[in-house]
Each structure stands twice: as C-alpha cells, then as structure tokens.
C-alpha cells in the first residue's frame, strides 16, 4: 500500500544542509503495523511529515518516491494531496493539541472534519463522529462529544485525536509518539484500541516511537533509524532477537531487562552526532566497536525481508 523508495528530505538552513531524511526505503501493507524507532533527531517525524506532505520550508523533498497505492505522491498536485490527507492518510501527533483547537467543541472538530471531505448531512456526520469516539473507547460518547478539549485528560484528548484520524477510515495512519507523554496504564489502553482497529479495519499503521519496548509489543515489523537512514528493518522477532546492525544490537543489549540486575548495562558509547557534523560513510562509525576503513564508505542496504546497512553485520553472539 505504501512504498517509500530512497526518500530524501533536506532542510536548507543558513548553517548548512540538514539531511533529516536521507534515503529511506520502507513499505507498509494493509493491516500491518510498522514500528519506526530511533533517537531524537534521527528523522522519524520528518519521514512521517514527508509522507503526508507537511514539510515546511526550509525543508524540501530532494529525491525518491512515495508510492501510495501505486500513485507517486511527490509528483501529485496540491489538490490531490489535500484530498488524500485526512481522508486516505491521517497523522496523529505526540501532542493532541496539534490536532485540537481549544476554543472548539469536540463535536465541531469532528462534524466539520467529516463535512470537509464528504457530501453527507450534519446528522450523518454527527452519527459517524459519535461512532468514531466509541471506537476509541470514550464512554458516553453521544454526550461527551459536546465537551471542549480542556475538559478531557491527556489520555482522553489523545483518544479524540485518534478518533478524528479514524473518521474517514483511512488506509494509513502515521502515529508520531502519541503515547509518549501518557502513563503506562493509559498508554496500554490506547495501544489496545489501536491494535484492534488495525486488525478489524485493515488499516496500515506507522507507529513512531523511541521506545523499543512499545514497538516490540505492538508492531509486526520494525525499522530502526539512525542519522536520517533506516539502518535495519525486518519482522519484529527477527530484528530484536537477531539484530545484525551494531546500533540495533547496542540498543537491544542496553535494555535493563537484557542485563543482570544491578550490573552495569552494556551501553553504546558516545552520542548521536549533530546533523551538520555527521561522519562521512557510515554515520554510526564514531560510536561503533567494529568500524574498519571500509566504513568510510556508505554501507549499502542488504537484500531480503530482514535487511541492514552495515559492512560488518553481527550474528547473535555479537560476532561478525
């Protein structure tokens, strides 16, 4: 359904060109949940914004393709993009107030969203809105739709944002860390709903997160981003049980539960380089224990369902 090919989105800042997304290839099938993980600044959000066509200047797409049901969105006219956005493709943000206007009731938000994209009457629009709220687990939805955003807790607002994203039964939802600010029990409630909806409605989902644990529980496939590139991707069990890229392996090994209680965690040394000071060749080179002269070149992506970008991939024991 979604097929990103060598997507490149760069920001042309006075200080230099920030290659936020630099050659990302990723597919999402109907009903599939893909987890996109990586540290802050690795390009996760900009990948999402690129798909939905919301990259603002000085950012701009400079290469690649975004095939959505076979149609290249990068060449598509603005009118067509507007049509797809919010209709076939929807995005959920970390802060639900990005979607919600504090002075409008939930009812206004939802009914207007339906009417903007479809020729239906108000009564039908309202019926669908209430149904969407029920779907994300808002109790007493017919009454609570009259509320304003501030009358809801953070978790409820996030549910409303998800309900709005669901209004047109999109084919694809891009969720950018929507539960990061929420508590564990509330996060679990939302994960449960989202999972159920994908299964029942056959929606594809890109779940952006910096938490490998959340992605492990939710996703079918996982893609690990580092410095603007996907350095490893594949089925969740494959990638987390047999990571091949040293960065993925470092992340998996540094999780507290993968270490003996009370003992030092196996840590990745150093920190991600600032975007304008990325090392040439493999960007992970300066933190990698296995780097050689070869790594001064850009490692190509390997082939197969489980693939990686590394000249010296590891096996399970961490050896080459």
């Amino acid at each position: 359904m979604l097929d990103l090919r060598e997507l490149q989105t760069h920001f042309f800042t006075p200080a230099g060109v920030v290659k936020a997304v630099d050659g990302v290839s990723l597919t999402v099938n109907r009903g599939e949940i893909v987890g996109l993980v990586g540290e802050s600044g690795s390009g996760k959000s900009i990948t999402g914004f690129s798909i939905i066509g919301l990259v603002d200047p000085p950012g701009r797409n400079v290469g690649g393709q975004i095939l959505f049901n076979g149609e290249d969105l990068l060449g598509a006219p603005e009118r067509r993009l507007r049509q797809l956005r919010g209709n076939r493709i929807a995005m959920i943000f970390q802060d639900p107030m990005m979607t919600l206007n504090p002075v409008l009731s939930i009812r206004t938000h939802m009914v207007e969203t339906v009417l903007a994209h479809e020729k239906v009457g108000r009564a039908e629009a309202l019926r669908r809105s209430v149904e969407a709220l029920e779907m994300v687990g808002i109790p007493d939805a017919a009454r609570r739709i009259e509320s304003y955003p501030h009358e809801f807790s953070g978790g409820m607002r996030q549910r409303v944002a998800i309900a709005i994203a669901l209004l047109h039964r999109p084919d694809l939802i891009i969720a950018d860390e929507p539960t990061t600010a929420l508590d564990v029990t509330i996060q679990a409630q939302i994960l449960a709903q989202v999972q159920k909806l994908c299964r029942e409605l056959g929606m594809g989902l890109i779940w952006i997160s910096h938490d490998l644990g959340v992605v492990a529980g939710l996703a079918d496939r996982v893609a690990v981003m580092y410095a603007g590139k996907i350095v490893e991707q594949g089925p969740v069990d494959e990638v987390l049980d047999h990571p091949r890229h040293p960065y993925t392996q470092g992340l998996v090994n540094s999780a507290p539960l993968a270490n003996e209680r009370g003992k030092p965690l196996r840590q990745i040394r150093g920190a991600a380089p600032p975007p304008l000071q990325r090392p040439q060749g493999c960007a992970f080179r300066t933190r990698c224990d296995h780097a050689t002269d070869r790594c001064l070149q850009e490692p190509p992506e390997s082939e197969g369902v489980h693939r990686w970008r590394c000249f010296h991939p590891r096996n399970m024991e961490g050896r080459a």
Partner: protein
Amino acid sequence: MSEVFAEAVGVSRRFTTEPDLAERIAVKLGARDTRRVVHALDGVNLAIRRGEVVGLVGESGCGKSTLGRIIAGMLPPSEGTVRFRGKDRARLRGQEARQARLDTQIIFQDPMSSLNPRKRVVDIIGEAPVAHGLIPRKDKAALVAGLLEKVGLDPSMRDRFPHQFSGGQRQRIGIARALAVNPEFLVCDESIAALDISIQAQVINLFMQLRQDLDLTYLFISHDLSVVHHIADRVVIMYLGRVVESGPTEAIFAAPNHPYTAALLEEVPRIDRRHRSFQPVKGEIPSPINPPSGCHFHPRCPFAMDRCRVERPALIAVGGGQESACHLNDLAERPRFTQTDNREKTA
C-alpha cells in the same frame, strides 16, 4: 541492616489551586469561589536506609515529586514529620540545617531548565562549594575538572555554556553540580526520562558507579519500572497520594501483592514481550482534587468489594518484607493475579 537515613512519617501535603483569570472574574461577579484543594500526599510513610537505593514509582500526578521535595527539605509537609539522620528536619537550625541541605541534592528531569544558560560550566559546578566555604576559590578549577572527569566529561569543556552540550552531557553537568557539595543523599526525579535511549544506559551506569565510589543513598523517582527494577534495592509504589505497596525489588516484581502494582507490571513495555494482546486496566486516573472514597483504586480494580468503596486499606506487612494496602489481604483466600505472558512465539 543499616540505620534509617531519611524518613517521612505520616506526611500529608495539600496544595490550593489558584483560580485562573476567568475564574477570578466569575468570582468577582458573584460566582462561588472555585479554589480547590489538591491532596498531593495523604499520610505517607517512607524510610530510606543509609546506602540504599529506593525506587519510587507511580503514574503522573500521584505525588512522587512532591514526596521527593519534602524528603529533601525543599518543601514543608502540611502534616507529619521528615526525619534526617534521626532528627526532625523542621527543627534543625544554623550549621546543622545548612549541612542537611548540602547533604541532600536533587537531580531533575530536564537538564536544560535546571542549568543557568548564561553561566559557564565551571561556575555552574564550582560556585556552590566556594560559596559554602567547602573549598577556597583558587581550588575551584581543579575541583570542577575532577568532577567533570568523574561524570564522564572532558575537563577541557569547563569554559563552555550549557547550550553547547547535548542532553546527556547536560544531565552529567547537573550531576556534577550536585556532587560538588559532597552530598550523601541524591533524590533523582525522573533524571533519565528526557534522555535518548542510547544515553539512558550511560547515565544509569554513572549513577550505579557513583553509588559505589561515594557511598551514596538514593531516592530514585521514575515511571520506568524496568529501570527501577535494575537499580533499586527497594520499590515504593504510589497511587493518588498514597503508598499502596513497598518491599524488596525482587519480591515485588516476582509477586506483587497490590492489584495496582500487578496492573503496572503487566503493562510495562519490554522488548521481550512481542505481539501482545493488550488487556489494560480500565478507566482514567482520577483527579487528586476529588479522589475516590475508600481505596482510591477501587473504580479501576478488578477485585473491588463493597468494603473497598468505604474503607481506606491500611499499609500492612504481608510477609517477605513487603507491605501492601489492600483489603484482599483480609480474605481467607485471596484471588490470584493472572500473569499473562504474551510471548506467542509459535513459529
């Protein structure tokens, strides 16, 4: 066992919320005063022994930071007593009070907002020990260089400003600043929450190393149960201003007594739990302005009984060093928690 180092006894803390502008206008026009009382802490007991790491967990707004600040002496309790090395903190005066303040340092979540952006690192770290007469001014540069090294930063960075560092490095600066006054007790309030995944492990390791090298005692506040499991000797779980369970880390993780603890453990995201079918606890976290009667957890508890709606359960010993506040412990036979292990790894 070592002696109790810091202790909260029957501590309660209430805050009065200030009305916002619209509410103030409404009151002027004759509406009822909407000022409300938040019960941030409600009769909390907590003892931390010398050299111990106590993990304090619970969901947003349950009172973790408030308790941390009260134990650190930064905030007075509305009721109850805080003891520091056996003495009532509120009664300390002069040199003793000053020493207690220096001995306890808090490390916050957001390293940026707790560092003065206009000061150089050398002053951020070195100012307090000079001001308190712990070292002569001429030794400041050397002290700072040593501290930077201790927290894993290059001493040559001492003339830089906070914005010239990454998040992880700024957190290290915050830790070095806290260590500069030779504290014995660190209160870490979500100190790793804002850091990147690959940096969290580094800072956790640093805390564990410092504990060994400097014999520190920690109150480690975190919502991340897997981190608390890793570093804490004892865990204290709070819900809406009350302690609901406490005990040795391994005992609690192996066999939680309180239904809320069980629910939390069930929901921790872990990389070894794949393809989960989530079965979360129902319901919202209630507001501390108007908490539910009896056991605060009763509207969300799958085991709630009539008694739970009216009677507050006391925190009682339930064996193995564990304490729990739940009426189920009075039943002849208590229900078992179903631990769902979701590893459906059938190939």
